[in-house]
Each structure stands twice: as C-alpha cells, then as structure tokens.
C-alpha cells in the first residue's frame, strides 16, 4: 500500500501553516491560507483515485468503465469556489486595515485596538 499522495497533502498543509505563523504581512498570510487550502484539493483527489480508473467523463467511452470517484472531484470544485470567495473577502479586509492603520503587519495591527 502506498500513502505517498496523502503525505504530499500533509506536507503542503505544513508549508502553509508555517507560512501563516512566520509571515508578518497580511497579503502573504492570505496566500499561505490558499496554500493550506490547496492541501485539501490534493487530499480529496487522492482519496477518490482508483488504480487504472479513467476520468468520470463518458462522452466518448462506451459502457461503464472503471472510473475515479466523481463525488470527491465535485467536492474539490466546491472547495476551489469557496477559497476564491474567502480570498476576495480577506483581501478587502487587508485593504481596509492598511488604509486605517498604514500597516499590514499583524503584530503592529494588534496594537491598534478597535
């Protein structure tokens, strides 16, 4: 049994979390959050993979051949859309924070209350 793709997902998650903790810039942190979320795409698609399975599109494939799981693929699509929405919202928060306090460093932002 091989677990390698799952470990790739875990590694991407770790990279994103490391960036979230060590970066001192809101825009960088938003990008790190995207990296964290990307690990879930790898995890979802890896979970649904079937050895020798084709993509679940049967336009030019007769019969019902062995295919990978379409449910996790649909979930990955949902995941991408939600990420885009979250990123847009976070970016607008970062814009307003920068306008108001003139900094994007979360450490400095913590000093301004309210």
């Amino acid at each position: 049994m091989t677990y390698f793709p799952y470990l790739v997902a875990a590694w991407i998650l770790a990279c994103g979390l490391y960036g979230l903790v060590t970066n001192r810039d809101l825009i960088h942190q938003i990008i790190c959050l995207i990296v964290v979320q990307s690990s879930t795409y790898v995890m979802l698609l890896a979970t649904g993979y079937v050895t020798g399975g084709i993509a679940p599109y049967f336009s030019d494939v007769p019969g019902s051949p062995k295919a990978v799981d379409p449910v996790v693929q649909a979930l990955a699509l949902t995941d991408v859309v939600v990420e885009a929405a979250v990123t847009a919202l976070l970016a607008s928060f970062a814009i307003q924070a920068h306008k108001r306090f003139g900094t994007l460093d979360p450490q400095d932002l913590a000093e301004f209350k309210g």
Partner: protein
Amino acid sequence: MTPGQRRVIFLVAMAGLAAFVIWGITGLPGFGRYPGPYGPAILKVAEGQTNATGIVSAVNFEYRGIDTVGEEFILFTAVVGMTVVLRKLRGERQRPAIEEARERAQPAGGTGVRAAALAFTGPAALIGWWLATHAQTNPSGGFQGGVVLATAFLLVYLGGEFLTFRRLSPVDITDAAEAIGAGGFAAVGVTAIAAGLPYMDNYLPLGKVPGAVSSAGTIALISFLVGIGVAAAFVQIAGELLEQTMLVREGGG
C-alpha cells in the same frame, strides 16, 4: 512574543499535528484503493438517470444540487460582504472615473500587453461560454466557465483602461446578472417543489442521446445559470478592487 519564540511553539504544535496526521493517513485505504460506496454507486446510475456524460457535473448540479446552491450563495455573500467592507469610509472621497482619469497621464508603451489582451479577449469569452454550456458532456461547468468569462472582462481592463472595463460591466448589470445566477439556481429547485417533485428534482426533458449538449435537463440549465452568476461575481470582485486603487482617495467628503 518574539518571532523566535513563535517558531518554537509552532514547531512543537506541528510535531503533535504531524503525529496525528500520520496516524490518520496510515488508517486510510492505500492510494488507488478507494472503497466507495458513493462514487461507484453514482458512476453506475448517473448516465442512465440523467443522460449526462459529465458525471462530476451530474454530482454537482443534481445529486448534490442542494449543496451547490449553498456554494453559489457563499460566493454571493462573499461579494456582498466585500462590497460592504470596501464602502466609502469617512475621510475618503470617490469621484467619477472620468475626473480621476483626467489628472493621470496615460502610461507609456505597453503595446505588447495591449495586443495580447486584445487577442485573448475573444477566445476567453468563447471558452468561458463553451465551458458554462457544456457541463453535461465535458469536463466543464458553470463555475469554471464563469471564471473564464470574467477573465475576458479583466483582459479588457488590461488592454484598455478602467473606464472601458466599467462601461462594459456597469454595476447595475453585474448586480442583476449575479442575482439571476444565484436566484435562478434556487428557483429551479423551488419550481420542482411547486410541481410536486422533490427539491432540485430534474424535471426538464433529459434528451434522447446521452452526451448531447441538449441533454441532461436541469443540469445544463443550472450550469448555465451558475456560469452567469459566477462571471458576474468575479467581475464585481475585480471591479471593487480596481475601484479601490483607481478612484477612492483620502480626504474630502
């Protein structure tokens, strides 16, 4: 807390997380041995039940249709939230784009960018439209198509200027398109209830040939509506962000 301390705490926490993740992963079936049951069950019945050959779209717009309505509204809510967060604050002024543009010199050069943007606008619009209308047959769907369609509008900005972008995508129209997309999706589901069927039931004719563009009933319709809604949402997100850099200035009333 110093960055050094922060890193130490993080590494300790990560060691704990890593132990849990590795424990969890070794409990999974190995890669390529997905045991089901949902995926294989849907693969077996989807084409016969819906006449869609794109099974991912069948899952998104039919079997998990009610989840996808939620997804569509997450996007809708995020755009609304963004518009509220980026409203004109006290001590900011926003003038019409034409006045702001008068004071700014035209950036020099950029012929290559203009030519490339111009060359890609048509194909982006066409591919976006194609993706949004072929969810039932090909690896595509409203979400992907909508984003590509929105790219066409961004290319107009890239090759032209903000004024052209705004003229092409007035806020009233993108607002309406977004409402038609999200509301239309929900309405398709409610129509089924009105006809005495379960919510989001596929009540349109499924067509005779699996994999034809005219097949799959509500799957095709919902995908198209989602495409309109998503394209409008992304054009609006881009428009909001561009407005912030182009039009909103400090000072004044």
